[in-house]
């Protein structure tokens, strides 16, 4: 079955290569505030960058220092070592680390003599009328620049078609996650994450076809039983092997709340025909993907608790990337809120490289043991 390739988390750039070979452009994106729809409407393939499997980011470290987030550093490494061969990079000021991926890649690619379309947009950190208006203007600037790059004008009709395409993906991913609510789901947490991160490896049409194939076959898959239903929250997590370590110790990850899982997709975009770009701006700025914003913490906490209840979660693993400040301070209010509803939380620190798998296994085992009693 061809959908099996969705479970191979290795970064695969074959689709982007084929896309570019046909004379079209493909650009990388980092962070959840770069709307795929605008890029796609310009006839450009958006490639959500990830760093899965990066075991050595030393070249990037020389640019970003050891004090940087290893996820960001590893993405820069993949750009520098040619794992990703694309036409450019589109970035928001999501948090300070991706901002520096942008700066360093713009600088290094110039030194390497590469012709790159590097474009940064500002994504406000509070959501209200004035900030949505600003963000919309930023998106208009992006749309104009992309139109110039590809020669395809970004029109309302093009944006609506792109929204429809990506909404279909959102719908299918929602179906995937619905499967995880079952008492004995047919998909593990590691498998589900693998499927979701593969989004960045394919064109929308290819990904839709693979998702459909998987969902059609899901009923034939063997149900999985875990000793404790878990949810993983925290910094960007693009490595299913990390979840595998936890699941091998008896945990079953049925939900997650980080920018590579369900949050990367979210609800469908509802388009106002009179303001298509404005609808996209409101959607992307308004959804609570990450505590990079200053006004969404209570809402994020509420959503985590509601999701935990909906998925029958018994315990939460809060995995913070070292040097990730955005996800750094959530425990202060979240932990007591979770305690109130009887959900314990385990805090762990991680790096992009699977450097502390042994320690994670021990802590996960103890956590599962505690929940299983």
């Amino acid at each position, binding site marked *: 079955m061809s959908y099996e390739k969705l479970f191979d988390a290795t970064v695969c750039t074959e689709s982007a290569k084929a896309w570019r070979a046909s004379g079209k452009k493909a650009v990388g994106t980092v962070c959840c505030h770069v709307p795929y729809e605008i890029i796609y409407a310009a006839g450009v393939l958006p490639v959500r960058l990830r760093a899965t499997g990066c075991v050595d980011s030393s070249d990037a470290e020389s640019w970003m*220092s050891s*004090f940087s987030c290893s996820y960001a550093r590893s993405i820069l490494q993949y750009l520098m070592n040619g794992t990703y061969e694309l036409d450019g990079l589109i970035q928001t000021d999501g948090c*300070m680390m991706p901002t520096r991926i942008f700066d*360093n890649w713009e600088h290094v690619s110039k030194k390497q003599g590469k012709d790159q379309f590097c474009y940064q947009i500002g994504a406000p950190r509070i959501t209200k009328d004035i900030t949505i208006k600003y963000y919309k203007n930023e998106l208009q600037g992006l749309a104009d620049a992309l139109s110039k790059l590809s020669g395809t004008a970004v029109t309302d009709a093009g944006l609506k078609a792109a929204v429809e395409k990506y909404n279909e993906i959102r719908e299918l991913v929602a179906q995937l996650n619905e499967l995880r609510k079952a008492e004995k789901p047919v998909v593990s947490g590691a498998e589900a994450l693998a499927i979701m991160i593969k989004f960045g490896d394919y064109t929308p049409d290819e990904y839709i076809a693979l998702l459909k194939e998987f969902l059609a076959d899901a009923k034939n898959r063997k149900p999985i039983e875990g000793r404790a239903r878990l949810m993983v929250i925290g910094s960007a997590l693009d490595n299913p092997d990390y979840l595998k370590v936890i699941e091998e110790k008896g945990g079953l990850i049925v939900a997650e709340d980080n920018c590579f899982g369900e949050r990367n997709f979210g609800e469908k975009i509802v388009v106002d025909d009179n303001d298509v770009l404005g609808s996209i701006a409101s959607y992307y700025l308004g959804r609570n993907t990450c505590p990079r914003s200053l006004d969404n913490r209570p809402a994020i906490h509420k959503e985590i608790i509601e999701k935990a209840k909906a998925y029958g979660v018994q315990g939460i693993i809060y995995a913070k990337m070292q040097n990730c400040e955005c996800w*750094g301070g959530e425990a202060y209010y979240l932990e007591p809120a979770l305690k109130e509803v009887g959900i314990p939380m385990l805090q762990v620190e991680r790096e992009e490289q699977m450097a502390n798998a042994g320690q994670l296994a021990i802590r996960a085992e103890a956590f599962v043991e505690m929940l299983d009693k």
Partner: protein
Amino acid sequence: MAEARQNFDPTKPVNMIELTCDQVDSIYQHMLSKGMPEIMWTVDIQKFCWEEIRDAHKNGKKLVAFGGPVPVTLLRAFDCVPFFLDTIPTRIASMEDLCSRFIDETEKYAPTSMCAIDKAQLGCALKNEMGVKFDAFVHATVPCDSARIAYPLMERVFDCPCFTFDCPFRHDDKGFQYVADQIEQFVPWLEELTGLKWDDERRAKLKEINEKANKAYEILIQLGDLRKKKPCVLPGRMLVLNEIIAPLAGTDEVITMLQTQLEMGNMLADMGMTATRCPEGQQPYRVCLMQNMLWSNTGIMDWMEKTYGAITVMDGFGYQDGVIIEDLDNWERVKYQTAQSMLLVPMIHGATGPTEYWLRVIDKMYDEFSVNVSIFMGHVGCKHTWASGKIVTDYIQEKYGIPTLYVDVDAIDPRYKSNDELRAQIGEYMESVVGAHNFRKDQ
């Protein structure tokens, strides 16, 4: 072995404001008793700064805590006393016991990698040891991700009306106008907070405050020009004191302090003298500290002066100058230029936007201040500036031919690196790379 000095009674809650006022007052009294009138102005300003906060309510004013770049002049026009929360960490950075008390508190809940500027102020808030109750909290979405942990938490801890300025990464017309539009929204919020109207009286008050702020920034520019002279007459540590302009722009007291500094500097220059600790007639090295000021060890600048004749002429995230508001009767221009000044203050101008902005700051410093020693005094909490470090230092090497020393420090937490270790690192660089003579070895 000398007993460590205790800055507070650890068995009792600390009252941060009272404690600071007492400490500043005892320095003041000490200097009075020793008869040091020529430098009293350096303490006068600190006394004013902290006592204004302590006495805000007694004086019938609203006390407004703030973080990041906010329009301080407007706060003052609405009869509020602005309390810049960063002054807590910068004030206590040299006091290991007090600093660790607050930093350790924050680290119970937040990562150790968080910036200690934010850890210290957040810890003070979490322990409820500010010693004052705020009427409001105004903050921005910059400078960094650490602040973005601290501010939302403090909002909830302070439990008072809050206003957030969203500061964009772009420091261009679009960005300035965006912030200016938020200033427009800030005015009715202030009206509601204070019960005062945005009427002719308030506008006149703002004009008066802006005139004073302009004056202060004009002097600051002249002080910058003075530092460009060879030899540099003002010591490195004056750069630290001048940061007090952030909460005090628009007051007479900050004008007096800057004016006195300027007069003294000019007088010394006229006499062919300097107020630095460089050996007489020996000031071969002009240092740029490219990142944050090292508040936890400002004495290192004195040591560099004494030991190598190396004067810190400017710091990368300091005040090179300020925005002068040109048309004080034109509200649209006032808003726009206030927005400009918000996005061009220290730490914001070079560090919150693209690295390219930092390079502009570098050019200004290296071209105008005749820098010949480059030190990346890298605050470990400032991870995003470390992540620009190679671009910046390569640029300096290629354009100015100066190799840069990287030193990792904690600008606030003195426990991170000992004075001896820091001196050894800088000393090795000065002697082996720069080829500096160690004057103290002669003594």
